């Protein structure tokens, strides 16, 4: 896989600017696990565990393109708020090196921490008037489980990905990844902490590839 990304980067550098107008994309449907939950209201998702496997409920998937991509500067600061004693969004995919802010939107203390190998941190207790808003930078790819030391039921997931190309499906599983470089990559769909599906993809300039999972 080492040589192949190099080739892709090269082609992206060479071909990218010239083909700016034609969007190279992947789209499709990730078949999400069936759920018995009620229809989603207000985009509230929660993290559930079944048999030690973390996922969102209702199910969502993160589709991302894995490969070697040229660094594109500092990714923008993302945000995971604590609102109504839940993390919002419950599942946040970020690129490696992304800083994530954790504003407290509840009228009480929260204490966000993570013991996950991908990122260990402890923000301590703070309230909504805490300034600056505590941030963390996520430099290691992997799944980070967010917990609150005060509210033991609160869970959040940050999926740190070593790629700038990722998207969260909608509730039906539809996704579209656009502005992709052409080349040979692996398209992955993260479903749960244990399940990540993958497909090799050949992206051609200006073409939209249709990939369904599974």
């Amino acid at each position, binding site marked *: 896989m080492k040589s192949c990304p190099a080739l892709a980067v090269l082609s992206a550098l060479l071909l990218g600017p010239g083909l700016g107008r034609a969007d190279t994309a992947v789209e499709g449907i990730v078949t999400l696990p069936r759920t018995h939950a009620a229809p989603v209201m207000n985009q509230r998702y929660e993290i559930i565990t079944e048999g030690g496997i*973390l996922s969102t409920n209702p199910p969502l998937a993160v589709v991302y393109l894995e490969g070697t991509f040229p660094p594109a500067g500092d990714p923008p600061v993302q945000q995971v708020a604590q609102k109504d004693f839940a993390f919002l969004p419950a599942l946040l995919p970020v690129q490696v090196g992304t800083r994530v802010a954790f504003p407290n939107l509840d009228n009480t203390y929260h204490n966000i921490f993570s*013991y*996950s190998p991908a990122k260990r941190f402890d923000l301590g207790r703070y309230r909504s008037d805490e300034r600056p808003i505590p941030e963390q930078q996520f430099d290691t790819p992997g799944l980070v489980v967010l*917990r*609150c*030391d005060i*509210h033991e039921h609160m869970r959040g997931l940050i999926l740190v990905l070593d790629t700038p190309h990722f998207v969260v499906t909608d509730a039906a599983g539809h996704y579209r990844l656009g502005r992709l470089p052409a080349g040979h990559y692996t398209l992955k769909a993260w479903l749960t902490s244990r399940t990540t599906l993958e497909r090799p993809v050949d992206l051609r300039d200006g073409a939209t590839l249709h990939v369904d999972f599974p």
Partner: protein
Amino acid sequence: MTPPSEPPPSGFARFRVKLLVAMMLVVSLVTAVVLFFAQRNVSASVQRELERAFEGDLSSLHAAEEIRYAMLAERCRALARRPRIHAALEDGALDLLYPTARDELADVMDPGDQGTDAGPYAFHARFYRFLDGAGRVLSPPDPQMAGRLSPVEEAQLTLPAVPDRLQIGYLLQEPPGGPRVVDEVIAMPIVSTETGEVIAALVLGFKPFEAGGKYSPVGLKSGLWVQGRLLLPALDPAVEAALGRRVGEAMAAARALETSFTVNVGPTPSLLFCRQLNPTSRFPPAFEVCIYPLTEALARERRLSWQFVSAGGLLLLAAFAASHVFSRRLSRPVEKLAVDSAENHAQRQRAEAALELTNQELQRSARFSADASHQLKTPVTVLRAGLEELLAGERLAPDAREEIETLVHQTFRLTSVIEDLLLLSRMDAGRLQIAFERVDLTALLEAFLDDLGALPDGPDLAVETDIPTGLVIAGEKRYTGLILQNLLENARKYNRPGGRIRVTARADDGWCVLTVGNSGHPIPAEAREQIFERFHRGTMGENVPGHGLGLNLARELARLHGGDLRLSRSDEAWTEFEVRFRLALAAAPLA
């Protein structure tokens, strides 16, 4: 009343002593029985009170323990829910487990070293460890961090599997050179909030609950029996070891979760209560051992016993005094009775002696009359024979012959008197008895009336009869005849010349009433009873033959017959005797 000079009979003193002894015996018996039951009652109630006190102490101890357990369990549960500990276990950060726990358990852990004592309700843990999902101990990177335990002690915390419920165990620590210590161990399962499975366990060691003497008003001492060793710091080590062996044996024998028995703790008899503290735990069994010294209870019981005995003694003394008084009072009427009885006895003896004397005299006089009669009969017979021989002689002058005939006649009279006397004497001596038989009174009367008519020298008398036929009476014919003969003879003898004799008989309600009347001279009123006495003769003069025994004899005989003879009428015109006989029953022969 008894004259004071006369002492009570000796038997009476014996009676009084016996009464006193009997009363004392009864009193003693009653006192003994009452004391026995009271003693038993009191003893039982002392025992009950003791048990209640013991149970009360024990239950307050257990209540305190339970509260403590509940609080410890709650603390452990709260600790086991800490998100950081969960995060360390669930998010694969075991290296952060003990550092995290040190922070999280900082307020639980004993702040000082093992020395500080926060009292019996101390909730401070002395150590803690985590068990992994298989029940093995996760050793802390730095033993100081989680309370020092030797590897051996740490190994004792290992469970065969991670527990799904709270477990209580006891960990015996024997640091070299230091005192033995037992820690109460609570293993709290850590349930994953993600999977709902038990992923680990938190084991906390606490200083065990102590119910020392100062917390127990009645000297209840409690300790622990762990791994065959007894830890009861209040006891001497040797006593402790011996008692530990004893408890081990008892528990092995009892095979129960709890048992109690009496045991000598050193010199002190004590009630020992033993209970398994962790019956369902996966840790090795540990027992709570409570010792309740019976010294005070026994002393109290002894004191009570003495009180009872002395009270009983006093009671007995009082009762004896009372019984003495009572026996005296009770025996007083008896004493009087006894004295009276003695007097009565003497009187009766005197009366009996007099009676005996009288009887003897009577017998003697009766025998005398009988003897006299016998002695007289013979010479009279000889006399008569001689006189009749003289009369038979040819040479008697007519004057002399008349004289001799008179004499002969007198001998007959004499014989008659003698015979009557003989009969009377037999009756007096009670030797005459009527051999009852059926006597045909009608026939007997007719025979006598015939004889009466045939008498040559009788006055010219008219005889009237009114006798029903077939009158049968109970009597002896010979003596019945004597009665009739006497009456008829009297009626003839004392009659006027040319007078009447009337004989009537009738049956009257089981009796036969016979009357013999004559028209003789009346009997004076003052002599009417005397005529029945012996040798009494009427005033009618000596010319009438008779000797004054007839009526007496007739009456005595009539009475022997069960009847009677009386004078029923005597006036100028008529004198009448009435005799009653019993009628013989129709068919039955008479006894």
